[in-house]
């Protein structure tokens, strides 16, 4: 393909890109490459990168920093004059006085532990089964994946129909739908977290299944053949050959699961607005805004706790990812 046709007819070049350009060349190129740019090009490039960056930084990072700043103040939200610096008072109050804070932290942890221990391995198991080139695999995949497509708010309503004390599926089936024999899955603070987690796991399984299916597609078939030739059975092959090669997928799965646990909100909000038994950090923050009380500094202090935990996961993950990319 000549250079000219490549430019004038970009469609002609729409073949799968054959790998990256040689890294050395890229290293050597920058100065000459960038020097070719005209002034106008530089302005264009500046705008192309600048506009999205300003929008993203202003709405995401400036607000995140503002959360940190506000966490050390009290503010009722009416006029800037009422902002008062209070130092660590919000945090002190949060850690010692707030009856909802520690339960919320605990529930977020429980959320993660349950997701990583039940739906994640189950999603992996389903992926391994569906990777066996069996018939109808599309149909099975769709059934397991459907909950991921449906919004969490709708999922919340659908599961409410299942858990409803007098009209719900579960109580109707086990005969607990008569007055006096109710099992109140949503109202009982000892049950509701687990009830919500069933719904969350229902969704998470499909998500994990798809991630693992994609990972399994990348496993070199010759590894399986070699393992079969060595006389390994299915479990041995999986344990010693397949699973170790899924390492990158496992990292993604771990990070995704932690973030899902920290983000959990919609399901609980639809269920019971995070009342007794289902408190979560995300819910406490939101209730500070849309509830009747507007304690901005206090709400921000909770946001900072959530921010610190999130960054502790996000930063090492991204550094590792980007480092690997640069080496590649």
């Amino acid at each position, binding site marked *: 393909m000549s250079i000219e046709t490549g*430019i004038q007819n*970009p469609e002609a*070049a*729409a073949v799968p890109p054959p790998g*990256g*350009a040689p890294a050395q*060349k*890229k290293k050597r190129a920058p100065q000459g*490459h960038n020097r070719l740019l005209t002034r106008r*090009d530089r302005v264009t*490039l500046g705008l*192309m*990168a600048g506009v*999205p960056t300003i*929008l*993203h930084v202003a*709405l*995401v*990072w400036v*607000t*995140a920093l503002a*959360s940190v700043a*506000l966490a050390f103040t009290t503010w009722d*939200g009416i006029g800037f004059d009422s902002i008062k610096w209070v130092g660590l008072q919000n945090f002190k109050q949060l850690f010692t006085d707030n009856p909802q804070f520690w339960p919320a932290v605990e529930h977020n942890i429980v959320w993660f532990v349950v997701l990583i221990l039940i739906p994640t391995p189950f999603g992996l198991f*389903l992926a391994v*089964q569906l990777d*066996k080139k*069996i*018939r*109808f695999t599309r149909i099975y995949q769709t059934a397991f994946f*459907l*909950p991921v*497509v*449906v*919004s*969490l*708010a709708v999922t919340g*309503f*659908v599961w409410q*129909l*299942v858990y409803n004390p007098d009209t719900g*599926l579960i109580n109707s089936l086990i005969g607990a*739908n008569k007055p006096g024999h109710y099992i109140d899955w949503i109202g009982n603070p000892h049950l509701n977290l687990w009830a919500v987690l069933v719904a969350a796991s*229902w969704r998470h399984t499909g998500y994990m299944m*798809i*991630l693992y299916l*994609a990972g399994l597609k990348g496993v070199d*078939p010759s590894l399986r053949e070699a393992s079969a030739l060595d006389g390994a059975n299915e479990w041995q092959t999986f344990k010693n050959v397949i699973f170790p090669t899924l390492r990158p*997928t496992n990292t*993604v799965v771990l990070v*995704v699961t932690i973030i899902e646990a920290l*983000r959990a909100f*919609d399901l609980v*909000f*639809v269920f019971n607005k995070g009342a007794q038994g289902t408190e979560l950090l*995300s819910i406490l923050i*939101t209730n500070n*805004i*849309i509830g009747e009380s507007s304690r901005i500094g206090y709400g921000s202090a909770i946001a900072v706790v959530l921010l610190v935990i*999130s960054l502790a996961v996000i930063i090492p993950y991204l550094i590792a990812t980007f480092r690997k990319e640069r080496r590649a």
Partner: protein
Amino acid sequence: MSTPTVALAAKQRTPVRPARVLLHVFLVVTALAWLAPLLWAMFAALRPYSETSAKGYVSWPDKLSFDNFTNAFEQSDMMHYFGNTLIIAVPAVLLTLLLSSMVAFYVSRFDFRFNIALLLVFTAGNLLPQQVIITPLYRMYLLIDLPGITVSGKLYDSALGLVLIHVAFQSGFCAFVLSNYMRMLPHELTEAALVDGASVWRMYWQIVLPLCKPAMAALATLLSIWIYNDFFWAIVLISTGDNMPITSALNNLSGQYFTDPNLVAAGALLTAIPTLIVYFVLQRQFVSGLTLGANKG
């Protein structure tokens, strides 16, 4: 997709294996269990409330009809809320793709100093829980006056406000995916154009973007479903029920039909229909979009 010949031959030699049959039985049962909550909602929605309240929910239906669906649709003015979602989702998806592809182009095709740092900022921002930024964001939206531009006269309680936060938030993920994709395109392509005096914009618009079509299609599918499904931003940043997009409006509507779970079921299922259609039509794009980002880990 072509099945490797080895596997095909193996399949032909052993037509029915007990292990396979067992696997299918297991998968059928599990798949049905997985669909059970949705099927239950469907069953409830197809029956009138008077019948279920008299006979109980687990009972043989006398007659099934779509009455609940039509009632939910008309009584709650769902068309209006679907419209609200459309006004938010279409610009948000298009703008996100445009802006994030520009950032991706910048970081993947040119060697400036802060490329990786810039991409890190975008990607990390997308991974933050939304609640981390909501308090100041909410205050900021209340402070920004836009008389004559939005109905509310502020950024708060407006479709524009939701579009902006969706674009800002989602462009992190898209910039990451698209920059990975663009990096795979041969460098000679843009270098040659540059030597020939093509402008940077032309390189982006006429050479790089057309080659990114598959990734853009996958991301567009994913974004439409995510933005359609958004609940949180709308719950906090929209105060007038009438301005709400469909998923958060459903939350308000369910209060109205509190006494009729069958109607709620119909409403919830109606809300899910557009995402299901998008998914079934563009299944391949959706799944590849999800894994475009994840495989890079």
